[in-house]
């Protein structure tokens, strides 16, 4: 027993890039999750935060390095105490594709392991038929994957779909069954040969922000998504609460659109992902004020029940808007800090793309 041949199961499989078939150990996931939250921590700090011994951390880091998921930085010398070698997630270690469904468009994004959007495209959506041409969608997903160099394509961990509840419901009514989303999921899995994960769109956007954005260090926060409508999620101790009524307010971009239409102005620009909008006149100001009031009312209502210090506002609309709304909120509530989200290119699609990562590499 003492001197039996060693068990080779622990060693990373050098043949396949992502060690696809083996189930990742809890400790590997723990280390990857820590590295996602803390860029450049040392093996010693990993040991301190996880209780793993230095030797166990060594074995895990070595296998993650061999798989290309983790990379070592240069030694940090010249400070007080022993030098440390910082470890980070390797951005090229894994990729994922996310699809965000909205009323007006479908966003397809490919992200790397640290959440940087490497490819982004859009398809028009048909409100009456939310999952229209699966062939077009499949083509866009393939396009996202072929944007990677050939040798990196095997490192795509999976595909995520961020789907609004009402779109799912609508598709179900239309097709007379509730399987249309499942059918789409199955079709993508079969065609692309990668696992497909599905989540509610706003929950996915909040998850993406927690994983890659300003909410990374936050345990508790209130998340708003400003899209066609204004929607929110409460995050407590890293758990995203959806609530029973999927509270969604009509103060989003649909309202701005109707303000513009009422004043006889063109409104198409607000549905694009243009980083700047032209001057939209008084309609914009009126809408922004209402939107701000709605946000403040929601926050004020919630603070009576739950303690949180941060509000994160996510939107694909120009950053200027999120900044203005956040400034308003911060001014209204002395104890609350409002932050514009960091994920600005299609937050839903990026959130969707984070699903394969959390499922395959992270602790929940």
């Amino acid at each position: 027993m003492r001197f039996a041949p060693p068990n080779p199961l622990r060693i990373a499989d050098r043949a396949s890039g992502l060690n696809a078939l083996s189930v990742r150990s809890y400790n590997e996931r723990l280390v990857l999750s820590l590295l996602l939250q803390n860029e450049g921590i040392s093996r010693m700090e990993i040991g301190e935060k996880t209780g793993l011994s230095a030797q166990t951390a060594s074995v895990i880091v070595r296998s993650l390095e061999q798989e290309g998921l983790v990379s070592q930085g240069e030694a940090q010398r010249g400070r007080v105490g022993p030098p440390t070698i910082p470890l980070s997630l390797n951005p090229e270690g894994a990729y994922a594709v996310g699809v965000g469904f909205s009323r007006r468009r479908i966003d397809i994004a490919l992200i790397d392991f640290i959440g940087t959007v490497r490819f982004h495209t859009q398809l028009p959506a048909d409100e009456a038929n939310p999952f229209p041409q699966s062939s077009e969608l499949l083509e866009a997903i393939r396009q996202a994957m072929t944007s990677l160099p050939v040798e990196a394509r095997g490192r795509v961990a999976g595909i995520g779909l961020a789907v609004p509840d009402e779109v799912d419901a609508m598709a179900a009514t239309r097709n007379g069954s509730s399987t249309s989303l499942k059918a789409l999921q199955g079709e993508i899995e079969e065609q692309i040969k990668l696992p497909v994960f599905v989540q509610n769109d706003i929950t996915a956007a909040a998850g993406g922000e927690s994983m890659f954005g300003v909410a990374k260090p936050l345990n508790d926060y209130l998340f708003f998504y400003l899209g066609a409508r204004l929607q929110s999620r409460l995050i407590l101790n890293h758990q995203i609460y959806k609530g029973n009524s999927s509270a969604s307010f009509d103060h989003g971009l649909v309202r701005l659109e109707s303000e513009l239409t009422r004043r006889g102005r063109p409104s198409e620009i607000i549905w694009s992902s243009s980083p700047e909008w032209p001057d939209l006149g008084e309609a914009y100001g009126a809408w922004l004020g209402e939107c701000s009031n709605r946000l403040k009312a929601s926050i004020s209502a919630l603070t009576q029940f739950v303690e949180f210090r941060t509000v994160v506002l996510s939107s694909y609309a120009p950053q200027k808007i999120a900044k203005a709304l956040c400034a308003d909120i911060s001014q209204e509530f002395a104890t609350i800090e409002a932050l514009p989200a960091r994920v600005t290119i299609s937050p839903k699609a990026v959130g969707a793309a984070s699903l394969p990562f959390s499922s395959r590499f992270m602790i929940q």
Partner: protein
Amino acid sequence: MRSVLCYGDSNTHGQIPGRGPLERYGPEERWPGILRSQLGPDWYVIEEGLSGRTTVHDDPIEGAHKNGRTYLRPCLQSHATLDLVIIMLGTNDLKIRFNKPPSEVAMGIGCLVYDIKELAPGPGGSTPEIMIVAPPPMQDDVKEWKSIFAGAPEKSRLLALEFEVLADSLELHFFDAGSVVSCSEADGFHIDAEAHRLLGTALARAVDAIGWSRST
């Protein structure tokens, strides 16, 4: 101050490639010396290299004292307490007289690890950190050592993987010397001064990467 024991064979002893066993690089040139200068004054580096040392075999020709296992225990006790033990052995096990496959050389290393864990010469009677270093693969041409090392160069290329499997399964630190240096052409299995420098530097980095708390 922390202590590291460098336990190895002629390539830890600093034997000059192509020369006799008494011809040795100077203390500052051998890899433990490079390690000492790289790690700085916080570390006490103990050199323990012996030409011809095996993992666990009494050598019927060179002598029983070449057995790395019988000498390890007194050596650990002499130098306790130790924060880290670096073991770089295996090349001599490949001599034809021992007739051992690479996997069994790794098991020999496993015996040494077992002894270190049992003796627990670390601070407060703990197990010290243990780092297994796979020796660099031999050159195909080992000159006048050809008959002694018959079949060894090929086996030597498999040591790194076997050692890493062992290190993973016993949860040890591991470093593949072949990733930074190769053996000298002069005799095919010793490393030259430049290789000592590169290896010592790389090992210092590997020791740093273990991560050490600020208190000593």
